[in-house]
């Protein structure tokens, strides 16, 4: 029989091994993407300025033609534009839902809105993309203008996709408010509405901000649903109804047709590295927001 002490040790070391594994996976992704992502600057000799600030894209162009052109600005700007616009649509709705669920109608909130939000989370992104192509794009083309494939279509699809994130994280944060601050406020004769807007929402602000950053991070990283509806034209996103491109969609579309070790492939890894880098910035933001919260309480 295994002695008690030994089974304890085995348990501890097995679970520790699992933890080490998760570190290994994360580190290998970060290292590999960083290694591949920097090749464009170190091996192919492209300048940072060229990558970030120019808009001409033709990585296959030979040096004789003046290439390779690896201006990633349209993709970066496209990702920023579509994510921020989606947030603009989604944040008021999502926070509204959260206030509804946590403050206004807790009964309905639990019985109906909770499952609604969970179902929204469950709808796969390709299905959003498919509905985007078959309903949203023709609608925009016929009733609003342009070709349908547009920044607007991408932002609407993304807005629906990030809505549950904003709603559920904000709700949790509102619900975590201690009950006595509400009662205190109401006891002072403040109306329910003033209580919600002046007391409850500000108290839950770090959580709501976290929700917004999380949603933004999800919008940035979403690939297929967006790629299906934005038209993928390589240009700066200057018009709501014009087609545009994003960082994830250029990777989705071009990775399979480029060959590892060439400039056209390297630059895609650089864009992937940028995506990774941006996701770390979001993590840092969330940490900063929440450090403020723990200090406050």
């Amino acid at each position, binding site marked *: 029989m295994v002695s*008690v002490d030994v*089974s*304890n040790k085995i*348990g*501890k070391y097995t*679970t*520790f091994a*699992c*933890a080490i594994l*998760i*570190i290994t*996976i*994360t580190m290998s*992704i*970060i290292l*590999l*993407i960083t290694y591949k992502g920097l090749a464009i600057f170190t091996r192919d000799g492209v300048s940072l300025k060229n990558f970030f600030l120019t808009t001409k894209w033709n990585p296959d162009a030979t040096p004789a033609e003046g290439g390779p052109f690896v201006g990633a600005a349209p993709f970066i700007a496209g990702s920023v534009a579509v994510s921020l616009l989606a947030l603009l649509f989604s944040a008021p*709705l999502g926070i509204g*839902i959260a206030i509804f*669920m946590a403050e*206004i*109608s807790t009964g*309905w909130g639990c019985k*109906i809105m909770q499952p*609604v939000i*969970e*179902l*929204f*989370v*469950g*709808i*796969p*992104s*390709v*299905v959003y*993309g*498919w*509905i985007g192509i*078959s309903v949203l794009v023709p609608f925009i083309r016929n009733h609003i203008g342009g070709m349908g494939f547009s920044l607007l279509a991408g932002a609407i699809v993304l807005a*629906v996709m990030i*809505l549950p994130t904003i709603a559920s994280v904000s709700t949790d944060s509102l619900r975590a408010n201690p009950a006595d601050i509400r009662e205190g406020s109401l006891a002072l004769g403040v*109306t*329910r*509405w003033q209580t919600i807007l002046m007391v409850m929402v500000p108290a839950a602000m770090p959580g709501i901000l976290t929700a917004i950053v999380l949603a933004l*991070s999800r919008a940035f*990283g*979403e*690939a*297929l649903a967006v790629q299906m509806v934005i038209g993928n034209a390589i240009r700066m996103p200057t018009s709501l109804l014009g087609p545009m491109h994003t960082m*994830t969609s250029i*990777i989705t579309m071009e*990775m399979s047709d480029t060959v590892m070790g060439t400039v056209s492939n390297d630059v895609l*890894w650089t864009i*992937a590295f940028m*995506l*990774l880098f941006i*996701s*770390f910035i*979001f*993590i840092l933001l969330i940490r900063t927001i929440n450090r403020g919260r723990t200090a406050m309480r």
Partner: protein
Amino acid sequence: MISSRNSERIATAIFYLIALLVSVLLVALIGYILYHGLRVINWHFLTAAPQPFQAGGGIGPEIFNSLMLLILTMLLTVPLGLGVGIYLSEFARESRITRIIRICIESLASMPSIVIGIFGLMLFVTILKCGFSVLSGVMALTALNLPVMTRLAEDAIKNVSKDLREASLALGATQWQTITNVVLVAAIPGLVTGVILSAGRVFGEAAALLYTAGITTPALHFNDVNPFSNNSPFYLFRPAETLAVHIWKVNSEGLNPDASQIADGASAVLIIMVLLFNLVSRWTGSWLFNKKTGQ
């Protein structure tokens, strides 16, 4: 001037309206998918193989692939996630190592799935020479799902009351016995609910699979069930296009004249599966809870 009472009413009405709007949107979305999809779905569609360039193909192999990848991924992530969860909640004291683990989980969770997909293309498909295969797909999905599972496990374990744990320890049980016999058992309802819900998300994932499990599937012959045989559906080194990937593919690569019907049908199947995961998770959650409290 509007009295404060009236403005309160108007504000409340606006919030009811937002809630209604969002609920209607969901019903409309699901209704649209089911309305268009159910007209396409029949036994043939659910079981037949897709036709590469003609009308009349089905999605049978894709459904099988989706389920196979899901089950294999869960077989990997549930024990691993549970392991990390147990380590973090039971064994580890807050230290530099736990901070690193937490940062890793957080980073992994926020990585875009397409990034994990091309990482899989580089490491599993190319360097480890697994090819576009079930195995590459499962490993990419595991990387994607592991942080979710770890958090789930940690939360479920932390929610187990301290009294239970202390009672067990007081009765002379060791820490490991307490974890396996008391804490984990008490955490089961929370775990099961979470696992099934996250299964729904794994089922719908496509971006991480384009470049790992691939966008093709061989003909599946179910008379050969030996997973080590090249021709078996259970062979781990064959490409395996899943349902979600198939929807993307018929939209972009698809040469079938009935591509939009296929996408409609496949979307409906995907949504029905997700609804099913959702319902099952609720039912088992409350069933297990009742069973536990009933004892």
